[in-house]
């Protein structure tokens, strides 16, 4: 131990007497704080420093290479290899590099925290500090340390100028750049990564979800540590043959870890995220009256939330009673169906455009459906929001289109793999199952508070929700006036969501997004008043935005330019009263699914009426 401490002492002395690295390290910290300072608003912004952290890693790769070059230039290998404590010297070098990178990390981390605390005057709780510290420890410090070893190993193996080119290539491959650009498959890249494996922003009830270090991180960092230390030891230590072979075996064994580890470091690399929000559900599939004329009941779920893999799977059994054998079920495409059985026999099905079409062998029986999702936005690594008004589970498309008007009460029994931090609209029975009757099951995992029929994220105050709810009611009143309608969601209980950015309602529950600024009125209008089909023209007229260029561009995806021009020109000529009359007509007769031809015809007629 004394020898190791002495080695540290002499290595630090040498470091302090080579000011170039001290200067480079200090300058890098200053740059990393000064350059992005405009973007610092909260402590949650730390992951967005990914580019700067990557640059620091490059600096450490060069530092490691320079350490190896320094040794070679000064013939230190031959000097120390015949010393009795040469292995301790090599171990001491590892400790020294960890000390240098940790000191650097500490100064960097403290500087940034100080910037937040004293300059931006952003306060934070102890738990926030803990999460931040653990995150930066794994995403900043450990990669800095590993980069030094990698740089050292690379220069030891390729001791010439081309090594620096190799370092830059390696840097591209093992940094989050690979996640962005996909030089190597991300499933492999996640294991080689020497930085943040989860650079995509994660929305969650927890503001710091993206900074939560999962088990995959621990496994991946241990995996890298074993590999790097094995390589370093093989390169530098005096070892007997047995020791050398054992290390090679350990190295080979470690390389297999990614193949059998149940935990993965990359929990979030979603290139194909779902587009939830705005509407609960949308399909361009023609819904047939006969195919939606059935009832579903007695849902029995087995749900697994795979925290490390950031996905969710379930198996559900449902009693179905239909009048026709061909039925359509609503289920978001994000939930990939593994198989569907009817009375324990496989049935064929087609799942596309958020609709499952299947043919039942009998009109009454039990459907068993297994599904899994990796892309559904409302599922985060440590939290999720599965809400009753959204077809994350099989439901009748009519209910999915408008849960407020078409919702039915069914009975539910749900087994969850993990019950901690779960809040639900069902009862939690003694055997740890969720059960009860509802318009749909709502399961929220995360830190939610419950008070006076309000269920809301821990970070939101109840007063904010009450104001938000009032605003919803005001909007409903306004929309009712404009449409001459009389819809009135009771909002008996109000559930405030974080991951699901839209308003929706069924007869007993209202789902509000936590932030009232998110286009509430449009959400209410689309999710409560409109049914399925294309309502984009109606929405443009209702919102009085048909003349806006952005809307016109949007409509051009479905309609030709001439049609849009004609609608716009007629719309301009109509008086406010005539517009209101047409809006009310279209809503009353078609709930907004008015065709372009019908719209032009009606506007022509209305204009002709004068």
């Amino acid at each position, binding site marked *: 131990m*004394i*020898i190791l401490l*002495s*080695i540290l002492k*002499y290595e630090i*002395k*040498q470091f302090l*007497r*080579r000011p170039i690295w001290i200067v480079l390290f200090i300058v890098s910290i200053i740059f990393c704080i000064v350059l992005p300072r405009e973007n610092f608003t909260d402590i949650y912004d730390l992951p967005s420093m990914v580019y700067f952290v990557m640059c620091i890693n490059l600096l450490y790769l060069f530092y490691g290479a320079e350490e190896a070059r320094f040794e070679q230039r*000064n*013939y*230190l*290998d*031959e*000097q*120390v*290899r*015949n*010393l*009795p*404590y*040469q292995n*301790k*010297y090599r171990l001491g070098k590892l400790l020294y590099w960890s000390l240098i990178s940790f000191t650097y990390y500490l100064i960097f981390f403290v500087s940034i925290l100080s910037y937040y605390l004293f300059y931006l005057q952003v306060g934070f709780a102890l738990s926030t500090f803990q999460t931040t510290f653990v995150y930066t420890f794994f995403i900043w410090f450990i990669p800095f340390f590993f980069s030094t070893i990698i740089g050292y190993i690379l220069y030891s193996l390729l001791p010439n100028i081309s090594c620096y080119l190799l370092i830059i290539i390696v840097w591209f491959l093992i940094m989050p750049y690979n996640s962005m650009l996909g030089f190597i498959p991300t499933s492999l890249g996640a294991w080689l990564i020497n930085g943040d494996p989860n650079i995509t922003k994660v929305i969650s009830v927890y503001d710091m979800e993206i900074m939560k270090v999962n088990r995959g991180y621990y496994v991946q960092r241990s995996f890298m540590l074993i590999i790097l230390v094995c390589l370093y030891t093989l390169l530098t230590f*005096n070892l007997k043959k047995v020791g050398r072979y054992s290390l090679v075996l350990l190295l080979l064994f470690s390389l297999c870890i990614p193949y059998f580890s149940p935990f993965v470091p990359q929990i979030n690399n979603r290139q194909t995220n779902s587009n939830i929000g705005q509407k609960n559900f949308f399909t361009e599939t023609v819904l047939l009256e006969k195919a939606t004329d059935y009832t579903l009941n007695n849902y029995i779920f087995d749900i697994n939330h795979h925290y490390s893999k950031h996905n969710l799977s379930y198996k559900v059994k449902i009693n179905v009673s239909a009048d026709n054998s061909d039925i359509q079920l609503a289920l978001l495409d994000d939930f990939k169906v593994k198989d569907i059985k009817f009375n324990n026999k496989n049935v064929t099905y087609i799942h596309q455009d958020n609709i499952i079409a299947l043919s039942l062998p009998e009109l009454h029986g039990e459907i068993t459906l297994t599904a899994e999702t990796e892309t559904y936005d409302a599922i985060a690594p440590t939290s999720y929001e599965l809400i009753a008004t959204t077809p994350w589970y099989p439901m009748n498309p009519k209910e999915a289109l408008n849960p407020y008007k078409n919702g039915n009460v069914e009975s539910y029994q749900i087994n969850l793999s993990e019950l901690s931090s779960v809040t639900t609209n069902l009862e939690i029975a003694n055997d740890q199952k969720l059960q009860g009757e509802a318009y749909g099951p709502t399961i929220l995992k995360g830190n939610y508070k419950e008070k006076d029929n309000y269920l809301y994220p821990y970070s939101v105050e109840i007063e904010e929700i009450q104001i938000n709810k009032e605003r919803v009611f005001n909007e409903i009143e306004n929309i009712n006036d404009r449409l001459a309608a009389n819809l009135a969601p009771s909002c008996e209980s109000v559930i405030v969501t974080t991951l699901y950015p839209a308003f929706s309602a069924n007869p007993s529950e209202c789902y509000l997004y936590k932030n009232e600024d998110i286009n509430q009125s449009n959400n209410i209008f689309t999710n409560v008043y409109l049914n399925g089909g294309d309502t984009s023209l109606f929405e443009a007229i209702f919102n009085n935005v048909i003349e806006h260029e952005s809307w016109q561009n949007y409509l051009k995806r479905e309609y030709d330019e001439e049609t849009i021009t004609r609608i716009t020109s007629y719309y301009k000529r109509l008086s406010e009263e005539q517009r209101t009359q047409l809006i009310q007509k279209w809503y009353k007769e078609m709930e907004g699914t008015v065709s372009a031809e019908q719209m032009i015809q009606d506007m022509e007629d209305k204009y002709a009426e004068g």
Partner: protein
Amino acid sequence: MLKVNQLSKKFKRRIALDETNFILENGTIGLLGPNGAGKTTLLRILATYYEPTSGSIKLNGKDYLKNREIIRQMIGYMPQNIGLFPQLKVKEFLSYIGLMRGIERNDLSGQIDKILQEVNLDNKSNVKITSLSGGMKQRVGIAQAIMHDPQLLLVDEPTAGLDPEERMRFRNLIKKLAQNRIVVFSTHITEDIAMTCDKVLLIKKGIVSKCENIHDVTNLASGKVWSLAADIEAYNRIAADSRAFISQVSEQNEDQIVNCRIIAEEQPHPSAKQAFPNLEEGYMVWLQGN
């Protein structure tokens, strides 16, 4: 006693050292051979830097293979290119190396002072190594190699690049150190060997021959060395003769007469007279004969 038995070293297919056998006792042993002969390889094996491909080495009864760590405490090694931490001061460097040699912390300071006096660097103990001259660095190199009082001292080409005064000083130091240990002194400068060594190991293409004393090497050229004062024409003729090798030349400008020493089996010129050979000439004869 250093006992080397059937020692070989291969680098892939190239044989760097071929079935070498010798026994060395205390004293200075010169390791003489041309560039690429295997001198550094042999020293590196003796210094435990390389592992031999086959064969065994015993130092005072301790087997290298079984007692590697103990052996490392028994040897001092000064490589051809001395590994130095340039940012450390002389005393710090020696403390650092001393600790890694396992010298007790309490003994270290006294030991360093003694060694620095021995290598005449006591007034440079607080100078950074990067500021030292080449000769001083060589002396730091020898200091780190002897600070733990090793039983076997290995020095590889230590006098290369030293000025005459430094070289002289260094030879004296080696001579002194060899009084109570084995010193293996590798060089291709025969003068160094002649001035310091008792015995010589001649090495060429990985094959080692041992000579019990310097004269054995010198005698290899006995009767084959000729001195001659020749005109330019005669000199050029001898120089072109593949049977003769000119080992020394000095030109007298005024009358264009060249004094030279020639190694040849037969009298190279009617005026050539036999001369007493020196070590270099013995070594040359050995080289040509092998």
